[in-house]
């Protein structure tokens, strides 16, 4: 006796055309070991022919007990673990955690460190958006080409991350009250070089993709996320902005030096997969604008607040929520410190990938099963962050 995959039974007989036999729906479990699920993630789809009539995301295959681990560890000890949430953007993960701790402990960050944070954060956004477009196109069937072009550019950014922080992906670069290593002139020039050359790559990338008829046919009017639903489901990041929700934490909170930097927040109007693709291209252009300003204005000074201790770092009782606009959306850390203050009493992560993924069924209903793959690709998930 085979048990149905989903809890409610979706088997309903649908009458076929005149004179033919009746058909029934089919349950397909896509994943957890499936290349298009971007990791260990499972979707239980109920199909009527090729059309999706129900879909349940199943998460938890990569659960690593991140929050509980952090509650048993010194404040600094969790910093390298945050690298492993969204492993594409360890810089912004570090930033969100450092911001939450700084808020809780009342640490002031030196000016130069704020600029360095903006530079590495925006570089991280560039490489994330470039590669997520590559992965999405990979899901569409454009095997290799756009992804490898994106990875070629990403490599240059990772080279800079390695030169600065010592590691390409698991940077562990931020410290409470600043960053671990100062940018020297050579590293700044590397960043300037990347910023100067990236628009050329982006133009080429757009020429390859933006007006491509196949891409237009597969992406336009697919996986529409209405504005009201995006707001009600607390979707954030490029996904919400593609649906026309004008919400960017860089503008709302003005953390770091974003209050002083001139940039615009691109918005989509349809909220389909194509909008989500194009929003990311536009955001990369804005990131380059931010990078140019930050690299021009970066002041001299200390790169870390000298009064912050590495060891025996204690925080007075209280709670705080620090959030940043990570490339995937709003990444927040909610921290509670209690008596003693050596370890967090409560450590909670608000991961953008996880919350953006909850809306997957609403976007997929009525589409073909082949579209589910690109709709999932356009959400931009990293399973390290979904499951923690």
């Amino acid at each position, binding site marked *: 006796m085979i048990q149905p995959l989903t809890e409610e039974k979706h088997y309903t007989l649908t009458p076929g055309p005149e004179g033919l036999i009746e058909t029934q729906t089919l349950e397909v479990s896509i994943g957890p070991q499936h290349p298009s699920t971007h990791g260990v993630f499972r979707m239980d789809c109920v199909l009527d022919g090729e059309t999706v009539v129900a879909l349940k995301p199943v998460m938890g295959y990569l659960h690593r007990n991140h929050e509980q681990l952090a509650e048993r*560890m*010194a404040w*600094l*000890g*969790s*910093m*390298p*673990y945050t690298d492993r949430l969204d492993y594409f953007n360890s810089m912004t993960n570090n930033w969100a955690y450092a911001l939450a701790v700084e808020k809780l402990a009342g640490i002031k960050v030196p000016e130069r460190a704020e600029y360095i944070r903006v530079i590495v954060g925006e570089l991280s956004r560039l490489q994330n958006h470039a590669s997520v477009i590559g992965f999405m196109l990979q899901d569409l069937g454009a095997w290799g*080409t756009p992804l490898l*072009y994106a990875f*070629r550019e990403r*490599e240059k950014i990772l*080279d800079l991350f*390695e*030169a*600065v*922080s*010592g*590691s390409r992906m*698991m940077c*562990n670069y931020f*410290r409470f009250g600043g960053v*671990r*290593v*100062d940018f*020297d002139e050579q590293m700044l020039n590397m960043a300037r070089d990347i910023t100067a*050359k990236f628009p050329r790559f982006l133009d*080429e990338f757009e*020429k*390859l*993709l*933006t*007006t*491509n*008829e*196949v*891409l*237009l046919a597969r992406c336009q009017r697919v996986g529409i996320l209405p504005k009201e639903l995006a707001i009600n489901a607390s979707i954030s990041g490029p996904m919400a902005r593609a649906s026309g929700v004008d919400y960017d934490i860089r503008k709302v909170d003005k953390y770091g030096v974003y209050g002083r930097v001139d940039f615009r927040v691109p918005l989509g109007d349809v909220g389909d997969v194509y909008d989500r693709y194009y929003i990311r291209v536009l955001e990369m252009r804005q990131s380059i604008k931010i990078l140019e300003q930050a690299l021009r204005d970066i002041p001299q000074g200390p790169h*870390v607040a*000298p009064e912050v201790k*590495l*060891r*025996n770092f204690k925080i007075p009782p209280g709670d705080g929520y620090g959030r940043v606009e990570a490339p995937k959306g709003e990444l927040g850390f909610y921290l509670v410190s209690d008596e003693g203050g050596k370890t967090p009493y409560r450590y909670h992560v608000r991961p953008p990938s996880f919350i953006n993924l909850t809306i997957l069924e609403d976007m997929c209903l009525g589409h073909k099963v082949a579209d589910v793959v690109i709709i999932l690709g356009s959400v931009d998930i990293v399973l390290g962050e979904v499951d923690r």
Partner: protein
Amino acid sequence: MGFLGKGLLEGMAVTARNFVGSYFDKERLVTVQYPEERVQVPENSRTFPFLVYDDDKDRVGTMRCVACKICEVECPPKCIYIVMDRDEKGKPQQRPKVFDLDISVCMQCQICVEVCPFDAIKMDNDYEKAQYGRFTELVERLPDLLKSNGYYHKIKPTEATAVDARLKEAAEKKAKKAAPAAKPAPAAGTAAATKTPATAKTAPAATAKAKIEIPPDAPFTPEQREWLGKFLSTVSVGAAPAPASSKAPAAAALATDVAATAVPTADAPWHDPALGIQQRLDLAKSKPLADKLMAAMAQTDCHACGYDCRGYADAIASGAEEDLSLCLPGEAETQQMLEKLTKEAGKA
């Protein structure tokens, strides 16, 4: 937009340009033929930690690690295991007997390096660590972990020069501090004469006047040997190290302080890590409780407890600190002694 298929054709032009360009344009061809060709890793690049020693003749003796266990405690995935070395009488030797590092657990986060007050543990950049086994092969033992200061200079020249300068400064500070203390504290003076492990460990450049020879059986290739020979000759004539770079880690100031304070003074003749715990307590016999407590500490001033030795003792004596288990290098011996001393004081 023009005719249908214009976007496709434009896209194909892009791929053609990339394909042809990959033969002529370095920007477009970034592949490296790995085992034959290698990319030079940046200086900051990190993989797994190693332990630094100063002199090839006596690797274990000149190892900078004092087995204070700070890294063992601070390591987030707990991949370090340390047992302090003791002589046959059970006296701590201020160096590890066992130092195991499980590289299948290590996540290369560099926190051990940042928290080490003795500049003893540093990050390697050797990324070819593949092994044929899964168990003992992936545990690095003390002999595998020990690497020379010369090697450290080779992989991270700027950082290593800054560390050398810092250690030299600390040794000088210490020597200055030790000189006036020698007369009023004869007991400490004899101890210092018999063995000055900390000084020898931290400042080979200051003490080693003779030319250092590389032993013929040392595991070096001819190029490494030549380089090391050159490096050691500059060290033995006492060449001035380059000024400290701005890239010095945040623990720098602490390291200077720590290495400079662990030295016997007139007020605290027992403040010498070379003495045994009983000897130290004898020296503090007629002193108030805070001094007795201090004499029970391991005297490394490693700040593992959050204070220096004096500070921790004062905090316990005044009641500000109730936890008696914080002295990591002192191990159970110190904790038991602290419990005994505080109990006695409570009775009196």
